[in-house]
């Protein structure tokens, strides 16, 4: 039996070229895949999915406890016992979100610079701002999903755990836009700080350790220092607790002080100052980050 091998040769591409928009989407899609370890080896998947699992497990535990209390102690037990709900979730889970960001931010930015891939991005029809915007949006999307999913599970759990789910839904439906907005606030801040830190080094480990240290140390340090002092000085020192900055805005959105911020002297400065402080800590790092990447391009 004889056969013929056909060499189809080189085929030029004459199809659509979708320009910069497609390039932006490519960086965004790659960012999401890198953040979740998709298309990478098994080790790259462990940490992101572990964090998503832990964040979800926290919400599940909160929903189970609240449901059990409602069933065993009657309607309204969650409020009577002051059990943690939506307004407290981001406070409780914030350290997990921050550590998750400390892993993902450097993964998205440091690796491209360390391995030299950044120079390939910049010779394609996208700008450095497109690259950075797409990477930021990818990390924002992953963290937002990781923040919203547990809140949605918690809401469903609280609804299902209530003896009258419909009554619970009608009484608490406003928690949905609140937790969506608060999630945006917490994640936008966290992503920006993590990416700015990652932009200063090509080594992911340095950036991750620095970020975890930053988030883990500033809270006890500023709280301890604020307790030694009094008045406006203590209030302003307390403002430098990096984990609390978005949580004060979370409190303002829910109209309720969460367990994580109830002892923070900064609360006395008022909502407007706390929201302004949050905006400063998000927009100034974002501008710095943008200017650092602008310098990479011509």
């Amino acid at each position, binding site marked *: 039996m004889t056969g013929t091998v056909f060499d189809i040769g080189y085929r030029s591409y004459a199809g659509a070229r979708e320009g*910069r928009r497609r*390039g932006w989407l490519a960086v965004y899609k790659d960012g999401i895949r890198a953040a979740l370890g998709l*298309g*990478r080896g098994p080790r790259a998947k462990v940490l992101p999915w572990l964090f998503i699992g832990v964040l979800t497990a926290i919400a599940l535990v909160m929903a189970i406890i609240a449901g059990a209390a409602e069933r065993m102690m009657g309607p309204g037990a969650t409020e009577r016992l002051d059990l943690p709900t939506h307004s407290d979730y981001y406070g409780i889970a914030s350290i997990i979100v921050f550590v998750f960001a400390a892993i993902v931010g450097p993964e998205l930015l440091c690796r491209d610079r360390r391995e*030299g891939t950044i*120079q390939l991005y910049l010779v*394609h*029809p996208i700008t450095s701002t497109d690259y950075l915007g797409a990477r930021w949006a990818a990390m924002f999307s992953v963290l937002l999903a990781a923040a919203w999913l547990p809140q949605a599970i918690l809401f469903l759990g609280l609804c299902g755990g209530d003896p009258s789910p419909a009554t619970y839904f009608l009484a608490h439906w406003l928690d949905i836009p609140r937790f969506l907005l608060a999630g945006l606030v917490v994640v936008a801040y966290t992503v920006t700080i993590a990416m700015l830190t990652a932009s200063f080094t090509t080594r992911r480990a340095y950036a991750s350790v620095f970020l975890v240290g930053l988030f883990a140390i500033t809270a006890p340090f500023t709280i301890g220092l604020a307790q030694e002092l009094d008045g406006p000085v203590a209030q302003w020192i307390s403002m430098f607790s990096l984990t609390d900055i978005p949580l004060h805005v979370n409190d303002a959105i829910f109209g309720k002080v969460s367990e994580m911020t109830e002892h923070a002297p900064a609360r006395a400065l008022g909502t407007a100052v706390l929201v302004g402080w949050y905006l400063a800590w998000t927009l100034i790092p974002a501008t710095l980050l943008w200017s650092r990447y602008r310098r990479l391009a*011509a």
Partner: protein
Amino acid sequence: MNDGTALLVAEHLTKRFGSHVALDDVSFTIREGITGILGENGAGKSTAMKIFLGLLRPTSGVALVLGENASEHPRVRARIGYMPEHDCLPSQVSAAEFLTHMAELSGLPPRAARTRAADVLRHVGLFEERYRAIGGYSTGMKQRVKLCQALVHDPAFVLLDEPTAGLDPLGREEMLALVRKTHREFGISVLLSSHLMSDVERTCDRIVVLQGGHLVHAGEVTQFAAETETVFLEVDAHREALVGALGRRGVRVSLDGGGLTIEGSDESVYDHVRDALVETGAPLRRMAPRRRALTELFEREERSA
């Protein structure tokens, strides 16, 4: 594209980094075909390429790619490819995934990007290895992936910065064959940067020579090769007499270790050598054409400047 169309144009291009002048008032035009940009390390080859790609802005002058300034009009980059000299590949992902991503980055829709990625990997002989993580590839395979990412979006023109760097002799031959194939079979014009004259001579039609940021030569490779070739001669005795006999015939000759180096390699030089050998009776041990080392070429240019 017609043969006469200018793909790259540099007009009075100057680039300074502080007090260091990387390119000094350089002007040349690159047309369709394979053009080599030759120069020692630090000659300004990579700087010129980065200016064309829009990665660097020139201090003064104009650099046009396909008629446009790439830093002002990034869309033109969709029609050019670039293979950097240094590492640029992600270690964790497979070649297929990476090339699909690069094709999408140039604007190709996802399905077309996947097809193109598989096609170019087949053309460079990496089709069977396409699902392995790039981090596990050999240097030669990585160089081929680097070439693939420059070709995956089917550009009109590719800039290859030292594509043979770090390769063993066999890998170098394979890479140069791929560069020739890129133009002759794929129809994509090439600007190849190298500090090796032999690479440029075997691959390119035209050449641009840079030295210390200055343009030394621009033209056909054959002409440049003829101008820079020498003849190496070794005799067992009467070497000084032979030098004298060659000198009387107007041949420029210099002592080179145990042998002699003669400027030029045209037929008249061989005739003069034959006559001088007969006249002096010097027993010939070895005679061969030889290319000047790049440093020698540049020293010669400096002397004549």
